[in-house]
């Protein structure tokens, strides 16, 4: 109504499930744009001559081009345009922090709202898939080179997709019984439906990528064995599979989880469907999640859907410093999540049977900025207070899983256990071995992992071709 007046129209709202309804199910929160809404939103793009959005994207999607195609109603062509640079658009459209990457630099954002690049990316990808227009691109003629990709999260999937297209033979080794890494065990169904992850992985399989689940490299086979026997190069994208717990009293009480465990139980093992599925999860009535990132919000929103009366976020900084996506914060607020900002747990209190009954926190104030540029929280003396909870979930970050570095000593690691690489190429200290994603950076985002995968795949391709010349 009246949005076509002189004033530039605002952003098309994303249709979504009513909060009261959606807290009772695990279905996706957002419905996605209709074609009409997508065209309307795409038409807001002024097609800058020197677009700033492209370089804002870690995988350099040609953003104005695909938006232009949507504006013209050429949705399938728009999807194909995105796929020239990103094999996983339906996933990225849903989970990328666009407001920090492509949308933050959109000129429309100076005076109004930036183009909803993420929503449009998602629309194009969903349209192509739902209308059965997905075509498997032709791959280059076989090079005879074989690449092992360890792990099947976003970095690995990107590497696999890129290299298979260039004619290399790619085999992914996944430790769990399902491929997808964090996309499957970490991000909940209500934010990223698993059917979509499966469709994007199937797309890679149809291009020729082989996936071997149940294969923990470092245990079943070492990286050296991969290189000796079957493969010319190895990419390690094993992720940040080491949960951090706060070193406070009570951290091993019953009812205390790492976000990794809590989310893996719910997402990968489908504990939210217990007892139809065998894996249980504690359905706490009062749940405190420690942390302020996407993982923390995923956990607390899962708790609410599992029937919690009170879902708390306990975060030591303020709302402004939360690393979570804006949309997730908004959704969490709508769903009744209660935020305790500037609070830090000091101990977890248990009952005589070893179950959590409360968490004691200390109030904080913000001091000088620390090395991350965010203002450092400083405890206020004597400000202790208790929250009555029966479940505590630590979502304070993850470290590097040590299995590969431990079993491959010639891969150099940092003091935090992350693998050291040349940032431009993903090369490790071991010849023929590349790495990227959270195993290099520590816990970060899906798209940053994909960006690292993109750089590594280019370097692996070059390495394999140079090797041929010898």
């Amino acid at each position: 109504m009246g949005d076509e007046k002189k004033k530039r129209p605002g952003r098309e709202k994303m249709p979504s499930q009513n909060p009261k309804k959606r807290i009772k199910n695990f279905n996706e929160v957002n419905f996605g744009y209709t074609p009409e809404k997508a065209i309307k939103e795409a038409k807001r793009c002024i097609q800058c001559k020197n677009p700033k959005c492209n370089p804002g994207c870690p995988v350099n999607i040609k953003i104005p081009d695909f938006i232009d195609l949507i504006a013209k109603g050429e949705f399938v062509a728009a999807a194909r345009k995105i796929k020239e640079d990103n094999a996983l658009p339906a996933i990225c459209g849903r989970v990328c922090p666009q407001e920090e990457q492509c949308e933050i630099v959109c000129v429309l954002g100076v005076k109004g709202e930036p183009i909803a690049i993420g929503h449009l990316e998602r629309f194009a990808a969903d349209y192509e898939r739902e209308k059965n227009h997905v075509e498997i691109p032709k791959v280059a003629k076989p090079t005879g080179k074989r690449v092992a990709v360890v792990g099947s999260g976003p970095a690995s999937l990107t590497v696999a997709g890129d290299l298979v297209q260039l004619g290399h033979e790619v085999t992914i080794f996944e430790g769990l019984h399902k491929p997808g890494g964090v996309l499957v065990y970490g991000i909940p169904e209500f934010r990223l439906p698993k059917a979509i992850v499966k469709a994007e992985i199937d797309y890679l399989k149809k291009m020729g990528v082989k996936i071997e689940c149940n294969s923990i490299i470092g245990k079943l086979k070492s990286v050296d064995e991969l290189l000796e026997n079957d493969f010319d190069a190895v990419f390690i994208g094993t992720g940040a599979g080491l949960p951090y717990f706060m070193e406070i009293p009570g951290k091993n009480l019953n009812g205390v989880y790492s976000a990794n465990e809590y989310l893996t139980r719910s997402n990968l093992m489908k504990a939210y469907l217990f007892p139809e599925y065998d894996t249980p999860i504690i359905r706490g009535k009062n749940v405190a999640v420690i942390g302020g990132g996407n993982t923390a919000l995923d956990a607390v929103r899962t708790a609410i859907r599992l029937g919690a009366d009170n879902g708390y976020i306990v975060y030591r900084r303020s709302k402004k410093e939360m690393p979570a996506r804006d949309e997730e914060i908004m959704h969490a607020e709508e769903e009744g999540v209660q935020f305790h900002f500037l609070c830090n747990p000091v101990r977890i209190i248990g009952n005589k049977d070893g179950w959590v009954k409360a968490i004691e926190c200390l109030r904080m104030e913000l001091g000088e900025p620390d090395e991350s540029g965010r203002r450092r929280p400083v405890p206020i003396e004597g400000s202790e207070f208790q929250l009555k909870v029966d479940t505590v979930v630590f979502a304070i970050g993850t470290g590097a899983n040590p299995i590969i570095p431990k079993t491959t000593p010639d891969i150099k690691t940092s003091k935090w256990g992350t693998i050291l690489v040349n940032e431009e190429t993903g090369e490790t200290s071991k010849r023929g071995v590349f790495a990227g994603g959270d195993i290099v950076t520590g816990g970060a985002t899906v798209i940053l992992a994909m960006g690292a995968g993109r750089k590594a795949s280019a370097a692996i391709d070059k390495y394999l071709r140079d090797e041929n010349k010898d």
Partner: protein
Amino acid sequence: MFKILEKKELAPQTYMLRIKAPEITKKAKPGQFVIFCIDEKAERIPITIADIDKNEGSITVLVQEVGASTLRIGMLKKGGSILSIVGPLGVPTHIEEKIGNVVCMGGGFGIAALHPIAKKLKELGNNVISIIGARSKNLLLMEKEMKETSTSLKISTDDGSYGQHGFVTDILKNLIEEGIKIDRIYAIGPVPMMRAVCNMTKPLKIKTYISLNPIMVDGTGMCGGCRVTVKGETKFACVDGPDFDGHEVDFDELVKRQAVYKKDEEISYKIAKEKQLMRKER
């Protein structure tokens, strides 16, 4: 998919499965375990590898029916298959060349995990004194196999239906009182049994290794569900264990943590049992 080559009921609700898993047999060592996930709806369950046949490319495991997923494992048949078996996981049991007099203690279902350790110890020329026990004679597992891998084998049952009446710790006590020099103990069984062994050996400073089987999900150190306090530090049983120096383990915490899903397990077990009965009636 992993094919089941053989399946046998060894004792009530206790099954032996021999499964084709050639890749795993190439790497598996005594003390290591695998994680089973038999189908889409099943839980991931850690199970110790009881035996390895490299020629056949098979592993043998013993499974006890304690919950919904293990009940469904018990229903699998020869020729059937399993969705996922991951491994070998965990640190192999620490066994040096020659230790001397080693006592291997197995309680109930724990005997299956003990067997490959005893076998290895004997191969390395140790004097292996094994003490195995169960609640009752019909629940005693792997007596024959343990006899083969031990220099001497002693047996106890809680109800006195076989061997010495009492617990494995009673036999251990006798050995100690007889003045036999014990250089090392490996004890695997229910937590109360391992705890009782450690309580007995700690004041005597007899090095005692135990093997833990806490609740796990991934088995690769990713979830932290299996955390256990050892010497005041948090360890993950899946990657730091499953074996630990029993004198350093916080048993109080271990016992409490094992009960986390007790109620849920009862619910899902009951449902699975009803389904099983319905299937039998048909």
